[in-house]
């Protein structure tokens, strides 16, 4: 094999390496790009029941009085937040196109201030896009002082084009502490770090 043959080969090898490295970097970036892409995809299609975290505006459309849909509200507590969360009514019956307001009560039962976040979910997932939330406590993190009580509204419209097979929509809110903002435990906990891994 002559010297020039070898150089031709080396040039080819080098080109292959650069292309491979470019592909690698691209794919690594792609993996991270998938996180926001998945998020956007889910919000557009509503496939995982995750809802928009920003307020939408009411669309003025005729109320479809021929259909009656049950909307259920479920509140759940994640671990680590000494709050009670309650909803004034467990379910409402409404027509597609209608707008409704429901009140949720939050109370901090501990001796210190803490931050919480209510993570929303919708079932069935196909209904997600058709629940337009105008105002929701779930859009932002909440702060409660020791013993404080807070009543917050959820205002939403059920879109008229709700798929016909859906006649029950369930809205679920799971309350989680905001990491780093809440004191995890208020009393004896501070003395012994071990216990926090309980």
């Amino acid at each position: 094999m002559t010297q020039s043959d070898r150089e031709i080969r080396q040039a080819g090898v080098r080109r292959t390496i650069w292309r491979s490295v470019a592909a690698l970097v691209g794919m690594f970036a792609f993996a991270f790009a998938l996180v926001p892409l998945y998020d956007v995809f889910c919000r557009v299609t509503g496939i995982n029941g995750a809802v928009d975290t920003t307020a939408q505006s009411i669309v003025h459309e005729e109320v479809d009085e021929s259909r009656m849909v049950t909307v259920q509200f479920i509140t759940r507590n994640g671990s680590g937040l000494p709050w009670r969360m309650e909803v004034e009514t467990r379910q409402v019956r409404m027509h597609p196109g209608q707008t409704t307001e429901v009140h949720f009560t939050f109370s901090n039962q501990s001796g210190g201030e803490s931050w919480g976040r209510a993570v929303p979910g919708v079932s069935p997932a196909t209904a997600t896009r058709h629940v337009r939330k105008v105002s929701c406590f779930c859009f932002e993190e909440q702060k409660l002082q020791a013993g404080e009580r807070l009543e917050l509204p959820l205002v939403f419209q059920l879109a008229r084009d709700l798929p016909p097979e859906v006649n029950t929509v369930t809205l679920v809110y799971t309350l989680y502490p905001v990491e780093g903002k809440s004191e995890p435990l208020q009393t004896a906990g501070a003395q012994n770090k071990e216990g926090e891994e309980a």
Partner: protein
Amino acid sequence: MAPKVPPQPTLEQSTSAVDAGHGHHHAHEAPPKGIMRWLLTTNHKEIGSMYLIFSLIMFFIGGIFALVVRLELFQPGLQFVNPEFFNQMTTMHGLIMVFAAVMPAFTGLANWMIPLQIGAPDMALPRLNNFSFWLLPVAFGLLLSTLLMPGGGPNFGWTFYAPLSTTYAPPSTTFFILSLHIAGISSILGAINIIATILNMRAPGMRMMDMPLFVWTWLITSFLLIAVMPVLAGVITMMLMDINFGTSFFNAAGGGDPVLFQHLFWFFGHPEVYIMILPAFGIVSAIIPAFARKRLFGYASMVYATAAIAILSFMVWGHHMFVVGMPLAGQLFFMYATMLIAVPTGVKVFNWVATLFRGSISFEPPMLFALAFVVLFTIGGFSGLMLAIAPADFQYHDTYFVVAHFHYVLVPGAVFAIMAGVYYWLPKWTGHYPNVRLAQWHFWLSVIGVNLTFFPMHFSGLAGMPRRIPDYALQFADFNFVSSLGAFLFGFSQLLFVAVIILCVRGGKKAPAQAWGEFADDLEWSVPSPAPLHTFETPPTFQRPAH
């Protein structure tokens, strides 16, 4: 891909910064002695041997973990290990077998055989080759050491679904992530090296469509590796950040989504299973024609089917997630796409059978393993087809039926193909034929052991036994009893494999250059047996086979 060889030079004046050829020449003038020789070798044959020996050791370590699992499952009740350790064993068995046994074994075969099959003196990047091998012992030494750490090793299954592997994971998970990163880098570097070798180092006159199928399948596998290993790296980096830096990629409490983990993991994971089977297709496609004394039926369609499988493998990941609650359209899309992938896979099986048809067949050890591969891999393919039917998958999902399916594809599939390849190329590596009688015993005990182990798992799965449980209800007892017996039979018969290899290295019937007759006629059979340390330093002129 450029069909023309050699590629046109783009830079007339190349510097010798990465001039592998030169380093190579210096290396073999005065090879270092003892351990340093193996630490520093840049010879593709020596590195290939190291990969193969490493993967064989790991095969036994992963096998011991599997036997711990099967021992506990031998009877109902908890007898030998506690559930926590049981979970570590299932996890480690999966991780070691996938990343430390099967993948390095194929890389080892690639290192040994690709330069020989394309008439190249060595891999394109010999020093990188040495580095990517030595990353592996580091990675898996680290992974195995997690078993001794407080809180134990990884216990969340080889699929490490979040949040079990993040918020709820043992403290050693950070080391698990690190070791997977190192193993991933090793695979990526190996893949780059193989692509660079195949695209640039072929003998003058050998076009892409003249390459042996083992080379073709490895080329496509390397592209898959480059496409998906960075995604795996991304996923485990996100896990690392969730665990140590307070991010919430997969943590619902912080606004993340645990299901996103599964999408990302299986976007890597599904092509990964093809990474473990495509090179097997290449090996079997070399062995069957050799012992049927007839050219491979449909070479071109084999290449195209491999490419089609590789492309389709990127759009079927969702079939691993049929029960997470995907929308109907998503279920249907993944179901249709998955069913479609059966077509090119079927084409391959049909081609092998058509090669056998009207051949002149003999049953040497490599052929025995290759034939068992065709039958048993196809059985694994059938259960795969059943799993593709989304409504039926609601019943199969996460049961022993799935365990049976992927073990049929990977053990008598990938592992048997590796063994077939070892028996096929041992004469080239050692200059001796393997002991036929011992090899036959190894084959028959393995075939019986594999089927006793995995066939009853179809029944226990259909009857309702979930996977990854350390104890089970009484109606599954008989199936598990048989599976455990089979597993021990299979496990211990692998000692015969080691015996055959050692005996073959030390002596045996002398093999000529073209050890398996005129239909095993790829370029590796044109060099003497055993292959000298340096081959094709002057490139051969490639001539297309006459028949």
